[in-house]
């Protein structure tokens, strides 16, 4: 195809790009939902992603609960812990400058990561692949589990989008995004909605963590290393633009993968170059439809 580049390498990196993109998309979608409704820049997101993976690991090693039940259980547990966090820590900060929420969630992230590192060390813990094997497509080998991750994250993103754009619940969410006081004046318990939304957003992070466990190892820092990229994704897509976050996530995963093929030296910075360019050309984000705040 291209001189000096094997199709094997090309498709291998495209797949890897899609996998990374799947995680970027799910994580940035959760961040965008939370920011849109609550104006909280949730720096705990990476720790909650790690917590999802870690809970799956704990369930397996202490209770013998396998991957599939964990795929439901771990995100639910992360969501519950998130809702407790929202009630205890974020609600009192409401109405203050964004910076307070950002710093508070960052502090929680550091504490959670620190506790996990203290108890389990910083080396990665292995998590067995629940779907070993794969198929040979002729031009490349496709592991089943990676295929599953890509398909499952796509379904999750599309499902979340449908929920927000095409249901009554989603209409409440979009409306409260714009004018929470008015929505409350219609008799809707907006504070409760915020708690549930935060739970949903971090539940998505927990879900991503479980998905990630068999691919990357389970380690305390797995979230923080990913979050820098995910924040760049959210900035490029537009803070609070849920669809923008998901599309940008996949897109940048692919861009990153392709850069590894064509100019590997730039692979680790390409996303940030995109961020700089998009901030310059469209400061509110590529998919932002309203003026940024």
């Amino acid at each position, binding site marked *: 195809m291209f001189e000096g580049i094997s199709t094997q390498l090309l498709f291998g990196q495209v797949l890897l790009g899609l996998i990374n993109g799947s995680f970027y998309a799910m994580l940035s979608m959760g961040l965008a939902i939370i920011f849109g409704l609550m104006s909280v820049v949730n720096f705990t997101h990476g720790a909650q992603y790690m917590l999802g993976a870690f809970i799956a690991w704990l369930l397996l090693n202490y209770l013998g609960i396998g991957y599939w039940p964990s795929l439901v259980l771990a995100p639910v547990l992360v969501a519950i812990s998130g809702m407790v966090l929202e009630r205890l820590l974020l609600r009192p900060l409401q109405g203050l400058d964004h910076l307070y929420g950002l710093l508070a969630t960052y502090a929680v992230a550091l504490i959670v990561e620190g506790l996990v590192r203290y108890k389990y060390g910083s080396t990665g813990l292995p998590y067995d692949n629940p779907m070993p094997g794969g198929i040979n497509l002729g031009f490349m080998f496709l592991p089943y589990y990676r295929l599953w991750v890509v398909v499952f994250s796509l379904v999750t993103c599309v499902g979340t989008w449908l929920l927000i754009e095409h249901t*009554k619940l989603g*209409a*409440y969410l*979009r*409306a409260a*995004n*714009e*004018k929470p*006081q*008015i*929505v*409350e*004046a*219609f*008799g*809707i*318990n*907006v*504070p409760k909605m915020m708690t549930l939304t935060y739970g949903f957003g971090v539940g998505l992070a927990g879900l991503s963590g479980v998905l990630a466990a068999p691919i990357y190892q389970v380690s305390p820092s797995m979230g923080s290393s990913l979050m820098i990229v995910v924040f760049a994704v959210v900035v490029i897509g537009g803070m609070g633009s849920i669809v923008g976050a998901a599309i940008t996530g996949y897109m940048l995963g692919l861009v990153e993968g392709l850069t590894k093929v064509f100019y590997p030296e730039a692979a680790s910075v390409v996303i940030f170059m995109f961020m700089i360019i998009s901030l310059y050309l469209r400061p509110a984000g590529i998919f932002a*439809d*309203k003026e940024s705040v």
Partner: protein
Amino acid sequence: MNSLAMAREPAAAAFAAVMLKVDNLSAWYAESKVLHGMSFDVREGELLTLIGRNGAGKTTTLRSIMGIVQKRTGSIRFRDEELVGKRTFQIARLGIGYCPEERAIFSSLSVRENLFLPPVLREGGMTDEQLYATFPNLKARAGSQGTKLSGGEQQMLAIARILRTGSRLLLLDEPSEGLAPVVVKEIGEIIQRLKAQGFTIVLVEQNLRFARMVADRHVVVENGKVVDILTNAELEADMGRVKSYLGV
């Protein structure tokens, strides 16, 4: 005046039960006190206006009733419930519909979604058919983005969406503001029709001509206080009295 005018003799309203009683209400935005002991009441089926200059505290009064302004003292009783101390959504659920000054049409929602956003809180609200019969424009444009409507249509939408919730007390904040005279007239007719259907309405208004067209009684607000309360007949008889308050 049309036949609807017959139904709003002040005398009839005078015998009706008090629905909303505001007593010595003070309210603050952050540290600045905006209302200084407002007192007035609204009877079942009555249409009451709050009139006064810009910044007199009319909008704040409505926002305090709804609990959007949280810092308030005194008493606001709706039927048997005390509203001071309640959260906004709890107040709304008692059956109070609020139509804010800025109309608050949601741009991320279609006209239909805007219209059906407020949940039905109790029985007795308008059916979908009645709504579309009253506001035919909204049906024709149901799929459009909410904020793509004209100013008048947005105002109709803002009123329409609180009519299906079963709320019997409507708080309308300057529905005539910024609209062409022909649209103002149309909205006036709709408000008269709502009154004839038994809705109790508190209307904030600066447009005296509009206020006279629809109201039973007028509460004059100045510097966060009630300075005068007069029936529509008294207003008609002595326009000078009110004009001196409004400075027109």
